[in-house]
């Protein structure tokens, strides 16, 4: 395979678990809520895939990953709405609770708190560099894109984020729209988690490795718009893939190389934030 070809294939492999989480983050952004819990929800998905998959096989595992993440996300949102708790704080709670709960359950299910390799859960290659689980993950991302871009749910979500009054005028309950957005966000993180676990065929503690945060950065980098978020995800995946490939070529410490995508992302965010601040300042001026 040519160098470019392998770079693209590599970035698709990076993109498969990142894309659903970012789109899920966008789904709650649409209703005006920042789902800070993406990282924790990915872990919930990954663990559910490994645990349910070890009992009933990868397909059931994938479905369990989607559902369990979605239920946790919607449940956390319901809790913050009913208890009038700050959704941000509740989300941080999910992020702290998820790895701890996974660790306890891991002891019960796999008899270890460490890495649990489950035979038969590593997904096979569908294409060079792309596993079946990655394809399923892309499919989930595509389905959510369709839902937020072209269904009444998407329009209502955007209306909820812009003006709750407009929803009241339409006789639509804001809480239900927000709950649905969190549910969708959970589905997406479940797909990400399942794709991660399926790529190695194992449950690894903290295997999300910051992908939830990168997904959030991608949402903001993309200006909280669909096209922008997809573009940001593609850019990250390319950078990550390039950094991984560069290890073989460039004689730099691997840690430094692998951190370049994150530094680049930070730089882009800072420059982007300054640009948008300047734009909005110009808009405010008479």
């Amino acid at each position, binding site marked *: 395979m040519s160098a470019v070809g392998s770079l693209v294939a590599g970035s698709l492999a990076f993109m498969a678990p990142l894309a659903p989480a970012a789109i899920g983050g966008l789904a709650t952004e649409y209703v005006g809520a920042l789902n800070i819990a993406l990282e924790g929800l990915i872990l919930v998905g990954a663990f559910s895939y490994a645990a349910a998959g070890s009992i009933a096989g990868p397909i059931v595992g994938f479905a369990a990953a989607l559902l369990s993440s979605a239920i946790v996300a919607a449940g956390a949102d319901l809790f913050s709405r009913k208890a009038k708790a700050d959704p941000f704080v509740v989300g941080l709670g999910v992020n702290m609770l998820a790895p701890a709960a996974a660790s306890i359950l891991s002891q019960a299910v796999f008899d270890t708190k460490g890495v649990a390799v489950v035979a038969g859960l590593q997904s096979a290659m569908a294409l060079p560099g792309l596993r079946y689980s990655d394809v399923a993950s892309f499919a989930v991302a595509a389905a959510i894109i369709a839902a937020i871009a072209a269904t009444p749910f998407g*329009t209502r979500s955007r209306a909820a984020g812009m003006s709750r009054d407009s929803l009241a005028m339409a006789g639509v309950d804001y809480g239900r729209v927000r709950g649905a957005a969190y549910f969708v966000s959970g589905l997406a993180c479940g797909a990400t988690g399942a794709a991660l676990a399926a790529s190695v065929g194992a449950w690894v503690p903290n295997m999300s490795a910051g992908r939830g945060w990168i997904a959030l950065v991608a949402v903001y980098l993309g200006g909280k718009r669909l096209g922008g978020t997809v573009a940001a995800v593609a850019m990250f995946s390319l950078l990550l893939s390039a950094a991984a490939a560069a290890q073989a070529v460039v004689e730099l410490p691997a840690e430094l190389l692998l951190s370049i995508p994150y530094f680049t992302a930070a730089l882009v965010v800072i420059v982007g934030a300054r640009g948008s601040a300047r734009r909005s300042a110009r808009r405010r001026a008479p």
Partner: protein
Amino acid sequence: MNIVRLSSIRKYYRSSAAQALDGVDLELDSGEIHAVVGENGAGKSTLARILCGFERPDSGSLYVKGERADFSSHRDAERAGIGFVPQYSMLAPGLTAAENVALGHEPRRLGPFTDRRRASYEFSLLADRYGFAVDPDAVVASLSAAERREVEILRALARGGSALVLDEPTSILGEKETASLFALVRRLRDSGAGIVYISHRAGEIADLADRVTVLRSGAVERAFAAADVDECELAGLIVSGAACADPDRTEGGRTAGLRGGAAPGEPALVIRGVSQRARGSGSLLRVDLTVRSGEIVSVIALGGNGLETLEDVAAGIVSPDEGDVLVKGRPLARWPGRELRSRVMAYLPTDRENRGLSPKASVAMNAVAGRLFDYSFSEFAAGARPLADAAGMLGGFGVANWKGRRVDTLSGGNRQRVVASRELSGGAEVVVAANPAQGLDRGARSRLFSRLAAMRDSGSAVLLLSSDPDDAAELADRSFALYRGRLIPVERGESFEAAFSKALTGARQ
């Protein structure tokens, strides 16, 4: 035929501890325009919100075409044929006109997907039927205020349309748009719809209404056929009590004690050619106003005519889009904030909780907040001098029992006294007082007014912004009404209150 009937509706708001509606009855027949009028806070908007299903009454009943009905959301009201056009925009700004109208009732295709083309098409049909020319695919944020209003009206008519509730619909419209709105409202009436028209503009109601219900403090004060009264009487009914061109009515003796003192001197606060765009109908249009030392100038307006914007501009909270604000000849923006606010300008804001006070700080700290830099570190740390100063200031306005208390434990009236203590103890040269008497009892009000009068007599320039014409009658040397962002001078003399009512409600003089 009777479309909707409300009977003994009561509604209490715990958050503001206000009985918004206290046993209101209202009937709407088909083919009539029923005006609901009253001052701010009379309960008009609450009534509209209940009629349209946004809120549930605490008690009382609602009948649609004779049948008992219970609305749990606006969707229920729509099903009963009741549409609502809100005072301020309730559109999602980033969606298109057609998307806004279809929201919650989106046409579908291929199962779950929105049929955008059909939504646009249905919007165009609706717009054509009512003679509007809004582009269905235009994003709402890019539309003009009048076009947005058209979208709101179309949304209200899209479902139902046997009854339409319009809440202050003309407050953001110019004269031309107002005229075409009236034509539409008449057409709907003639085609058999019932219209509830909420307003405090006498001219409009005299033009338009068949029946009028006057609300005051949450109760129906009067209900009558519009033909029975003229525009003048109507203006008097909206603004409490003032009758029209009644020769017996002159300024009462109660004002004499306050007015008088030195002749006005140099201009201290000059507002020159100020225009400022604001949300809703709060815009100002080329306002010119000079307040000289030793005089009290009042500007009176009912809600939604630009008074809040004028307050922001005069106090330097916002700098106007056009024009200047000068304090003692120097542009307001060029005064250093500390110098301006500690020695030159006293400001009593309408929003005293957020702008006037720091609610979680102690009463004493709020009282001395304007002079913190007068204390040395050790004086402040020891606390004796600041506390003594606070005691002096608060005592002057009759705030008792304040030691060790936070501001948010005080009642509304006492909070305003704390603001007044801080702002009016220093002898500022310019005073901007916005609705200063709101929430004060009679005694506190007269104490505050005497203090303002005393400051005027010792050479302060006082700008009094209020929505209560009585404030102007009692205190002001010169008065203006603010109507739709323009200042209208109101001459003192006979039937002062009647003249005010007319100016405030836009009745033709």
